[in-house]
């Protein structure tokens, strides 16, 4: 079947040109500095050092981390019960519900985020509604609250879908076996269902936490200037300040960070050892397509 091997050549070219070479460029920029917009070729780690020396930059990292954690935690808190609730319903119903949950992710992210601007603004619907009860008007826009709502709104489906997937993939006879052996529904959930759903939970956390750390769009639109996250920091370096070297270095730091977290997730997954989740699954679910 040697004929078909040749098929991969065009893509090899694409990979090299559009993935490997660009990454290489980031590395080159990161380890050099520019004088008067000309790239020097002295290798230096000055850019990295600068990042870690200055406490402002560390706080940027921490802020991103914090936002990621909060978003993930809330998505998990809401997402797991919803996923579980869906898994209890009839199969056909489940399919439709999953579809309904997936549809918002097809709508342009900017558009979806933007819609919250009008809802949360001081003359917006929410305040209008609260005014009927004599509350407000609350200053909701450009606050932490708005950013987190925006983040949850865009991330929630990506927490629900993998958890639901792992819940439904579970062998139903395991539940029956557990009840057969005397465990009531609550114990069955705690000892059987939940542990076996952990791979899905892990996938969900991966798909929410990692993008959440590196985001900058949502905080920029819904938040005020108080939000400087790594994502927006990098953007500023490139677009506003024009320090491509420093920006590249920070990008590498972010990429490395993500890589470390991914390996931690993989290790955790191997530890829970329920063979289903693998990298194909993570990628397949990263943007969940309808079946």
């Amino acid at each position, binding site marked *: 079947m040697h004929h078909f091997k040749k098929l991969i050549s065009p893509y090899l070219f694409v990979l090299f040109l559009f993935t490997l070479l660009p990454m290489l460029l980031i590395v080159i920029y990161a380890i050099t500095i520019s004088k008067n917009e000309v790239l020097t070729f002295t290798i230096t780690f000055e850019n990295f050092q600068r990042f870690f020396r200055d406490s402002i930059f560390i706080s940027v990292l921490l802020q991103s981390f914090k936002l990621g954690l909060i978003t993930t935690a809330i998505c998990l808190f809401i997402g797991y019960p919803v996923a579980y609730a869906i898994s209890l319903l009839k199969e056909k119903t489940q399919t439709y519900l999953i579809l309904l949950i997936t549809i918002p992710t097809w709508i342009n992210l900017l558009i979806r985020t933007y819609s919250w601007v009008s809802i949360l603004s001081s003359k917006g619907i929410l305040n209008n509604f609260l005014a009927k009860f004599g509350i407000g008007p609350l200053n909701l826009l450009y606050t932490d609250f708005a950013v987190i709502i925006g983040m949850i709104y865009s991330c929630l489906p990506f927490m629900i879908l993998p958890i639901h997937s792992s819940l439904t993939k579970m062998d139903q*006879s395991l539940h*029956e076996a557990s*009840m*057969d052996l*005397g465990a009531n529904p609550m*114990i069955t959930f705690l000892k059987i269902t939940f542990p076996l759903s952990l791979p899905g939970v892990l996938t969900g956390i991966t798909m929410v936490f990692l993008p959440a750390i590196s985001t900058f769009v949502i905080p920029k639109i819904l938040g005020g200037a108080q939000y400087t996250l790594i994502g927006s920091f990098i953007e500023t370096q490139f677009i506003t300040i024009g320090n491509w070297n420093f920006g590249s270095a920070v990008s590498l730091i972010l990429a490395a960070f993500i890589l470390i977290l991914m390996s931690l997730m993989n290790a955790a997954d191997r530890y829970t050892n329920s063979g289903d989740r693998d990298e194909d699954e993570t990628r397949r679910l990263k943007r969940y397509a309808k079946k």
Partner: protein
Amino acid sequence: MKKLIELKNLTKEYSGQVVLKGINLDIYENEFVTLLGPSGCGKTTTLRIIGGFLDASDGTVIFDSYNISKIPSYKREINTVFQKYALFPHMNVGDNIAFGLKIKKMPRSLIKQKVADVLDLVGLNGYENRDVTLLSGGQQQRVAIARALVNEPKVLLLDEPLGALDLKLRKGMQLELKRIQKEVGITFIYVTHDQEEALTMSDKIVVMNEGSIQQIGTPMDIYNEPENRFVAKFIGDSNIMEGIMLKDFLVEFDNQQFECVDKGFMEDEEIDVVIRPEDIDILEEGNGKIDGVISSIIFKGVHYEIIVETNNRSYLIHTTDVVEKGRRVSLSFYPEDIHVMSRMESY
């Protein structure tokens, strides 16, 4: 013997289809009962109703004189061995088995002892710390049995547990299960579609078809005295013909009258007759009851499977005698080999 389970008029309907049509069955202590029938006959449905995984549309399940129809499965003193074992993949062998005992809050030392004992019973000594997902099919099977038995239920339900095993292993496990049942001394309710399996293991067989019970009896009864055409066809090979019961001990089929040992039918009642292939002898032409020609011979190892064409039909015969194709012969059988059954319409 004490009655342990009574199924009274169990009916089950699934989206318009009636899957169980009023099942009435009594099951006693220390019995190995098999529900036998083809796919879709309702045997697994019945089992699941007994186990509490399914609610009957109508009828009651009485266990130990109590109506348990509304009681959920986790409160019933019945345990199940599932078809695909349903072992918890995130627990090792020991924890799987101990699961039910831990729920009952038994002291740890006692649990340890019981787990070891039951592993000994199923022949898996020392397997406590093994990973269940790495075990072979037969081993997983035994762990599933151990996990159920360790809770000392009064009744063990087994849902086609040997289906996934290869033939030799299956035959070995059949004997194992029988041994375990005798040793532990509890009731086993076993579901299978394999009639040989049922005949090997059971004290009592319940033959089912299309949601109703066709016959209940010992393996011998079912095999030798099938009550109708379905049972006769389902169990073992058979020659089945339509006939008329002229009067007690006299039956007519294939335009001939034969002496037989059955009675209790009405005069000239239309009936079905079954004769087992191994009960027919092949004799020289003219020496037997029905004449015919040998049309095919297949060597089956244990015996030859021979087809003899007569005027009215072909007969299937199992014999170790050697014959040649095309020979004109005569068939013979004893009166007690003729079994008369009530006529079954449309089967």
